[in-house]
């Protein structure tokens, strides 16, 4: 189970935000329309949110619980703040879109990628088992400092990578046009999903 996966986190946050924007209650189909992820994936997100006590789910109707409202307001507030922050340089509509992205901290393309991944049946594997071709990064396990190193090198969930060579001590892959060598120990902790199989 990839409970901690970046996609799931984003989808969960999006569901909460949509709910609060729509006054706390909405039809499931509406959410499905809005966030464009696979049905099974959305179900998983909803089940988890329900388990966490953040929403109530009855047939086709989804409602925020009290603690859910609290959390969703938080997310919305964050969202509005970012929106305001970029309003100065972009149109209203664009600012809104940007804030959707930055609130999950990743680029537009990456978000699209992440959501696309959720429609795949296969849920990804460690980078080391992935011999060649292109893939999306879905999850990175690391301590905080290694994580920052990854991020500052452009290695981040949702980003597309292309494996170039496998060596006995590690892998060489291309990300954003740059070649990077990663040791086996680290590669094992990074999960990816095949890009072509979709």
């Amino acid at each position, binding site marked *: 189970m990839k409970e901690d996966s970046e996609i799931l986190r984003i989808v969960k946050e999006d569901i909460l935000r949509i709910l609060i924007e729509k006054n706390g209650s909405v039809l499931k189909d509406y959410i499905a329309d809005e966030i464009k992820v696979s049905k099974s994936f959305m179900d998983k997100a909803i089940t988890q949110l329900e388990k966490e006590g953040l929403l109530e789910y009855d047939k086709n109707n989804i409602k925020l619980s009290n603690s859910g409202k609290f959390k969703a307001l938080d997310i919305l507030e964050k969202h509005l703040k970012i929106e305001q922050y970029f309003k100065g340089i972009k149109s209203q509509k664009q600012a809104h879109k940007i804030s959707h992205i930055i609130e999950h*901290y990743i680029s537009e393309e990456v978000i699209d990628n992440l959501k696309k991944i959720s429609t795949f049946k296969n849920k990804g594997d460690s980078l080391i088992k992935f011999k060649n071709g292109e893939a999306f990064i879905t999850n990175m396990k690391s301590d905080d400092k290694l994580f920052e*190193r990854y*991020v500052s090198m452009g290695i981040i969930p949702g980003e597309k990578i292309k494996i170039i060579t496998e060596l006995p*001590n590690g892998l*060489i892959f291309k990300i*954003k046009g740059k070649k990077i*060598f990663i040791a086996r120990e680290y590669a094992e902790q990074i999960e990816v999903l095949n890009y072509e199989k979709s």
Partner: protein
Amino acid sequence: MKKVKFLLIGQPNAGKSSLLNALIGSKVIMSNYPGTTVEITKGKKKIGNLEVEFSDTPGIYSISDRSEEEKVTEMAIFEKDIDGVVIICDACALERSLYMVLQILEADIPVIIALNFVEEAEKKGIDIDYKKIEDILKVPIVPINPLTKRGIGKLLGQIAKYDELPTQSFKIEYDDHIETAIRKISKQIDNPRQKRFIALRILEEDKDFYKYLEDNKIKNIDDIISVHPKIAKDIAVTRYGTAAYIAKNFTKITSLKKEKRLEDKIDKLLLNSIWGPILTFSFFILMFGIILYIGNLIQGYLLGASENLISYFSQFGHSIIYTVLGQGLTGLSIGISIALPYIFLFYLLIGFVEDTGLLTRFIINTERLTKKIGLPGKSFIPLLLGIGCTVPAARATRVLSSKKEQFRAASFFAFIPCSSRIAIIMGIVGFYGGAMLAFYVYITLVIFGLIYAFGLKKATNATPEPLLLELPVYRKPSIKNVFSKSWIRMKDFVYVVIPLLMIFGIIYGILDVTNLTESIVNPFAFVTSWLGLPNKTIIPLMFGFLQKDLTGPMLLSSLGSDIPSALTSLQLYTFGVASTLGIPCIIALGMFIKEFGFKKAITITILMNLYGIIIAGIIWRIISFVGNMF
């Protein structure tokens, strides 16, 4: 004249060293392969009546405290009294470059961005609207090309107007929980400036910044962190998200031609799991071949010249003073004629390899080996530099991320003969005992080095830090850059070692003239008898520890020039091992003390040199025992 200080900061391979070259002219400073520039190097430039001191920092990806390089840069930004920072950004990797820019802007320092590789980016179809980015970040951006000097004048102009640089630049606004945490921590910080930067560093768990807190710890940490457990990670991604957003929206990517480039072909071969190590190994064999061949030619020429000089000198008489001074001169000429050509050639070739981008590939291939002996891949660079001279190589161990790993790697210099030790093996053992005998000495070093390595690995159960590095694009190295870099690396040797050679030569001359040598030799008779060597060989062994290059001449002065009749082959071999296995000389010991502290340095030196002497003695006993049986 007014003096200002500017820092140069950039990611590895962003073109920092060539920019510095272009900025300050002939006085070049090192570049960095994931490498040996761990110290900050400086250069000065006059602009009008302003004197700007540029400090070059090691190339890093971000301000974090994972490695010594990052710590050095972080401290330079934060603690040094600087007037501004020039950040070199790679136009081909704008997103990543901006990540560090955003991080540095948090420190409230005036910043100028130098955008490098703009032409290269344009070729790739990347068009950056840097004016817009300038507006957002509120920081001047100057596109540069250090090779054609494009933008250099403009950059200097910006630096000259340093007091007009905006102090209120763009700041990332993090999510509420993070902002609250920043506020709460800021209240606990006991420093008037840069509170936000310090608070963020503390939230990212940079222990170096805890000293700004009362009692060096965060109060009510649970209260701050509980609402947002993944706070450090979220800070990093927010920064990246913002960088990515800016990069993406102000960059136009037009054509993306997919051409199979030469670079990929080279990499396919060089990073092949079979061919890679073979090519790496062959390359180094070839390199040493070149060094030995050309070094030999230069050495022959220089030796001839210095012999002439010494004989010219001795015609003035044979008084005590001339004998003493003559010894000093011999020491000097040996330093210049033996060590210099090899060391300089070595650094020249290494500099060339690193500037082409090949070295990173070699590191990946050699990591497979270093890992087996419990050393991280990056330790390959200091170990390789050790073949030149142990002293700068010991300093180069700073590339490794912890003092422990640095010390571990440095202890291997006992088995890696530096050029002075190579001179003993080749010039003494090989010259008087034949090439095979020299080869046996090498093999002995390798075997006992490996025994030490595996023993150490087993005993300490060390797991070296895994490798994560970017493969730079292949570039044509600038000859000027390579030369000046080699010079900087061997400066220590010229200014420290060569005068010492002279001084020790003179000391020996005095001892010789005053007949004091006997009183030094006798107390150490047990060492030479353990080694099965004539008592007098303690002189070259001891002087060798003062300065390795003295070993050869001292052996000749104490035993006479007819070495083959004074020492048997076995004795020559034993002498070779005893004088080369260990921490080579007092200068290396000094560097060890500087890097690792007195206690550790002394301990490792005594242990290693004892190890060498014990092994040499045992081998001598075994071989003579076996020899006597037949």
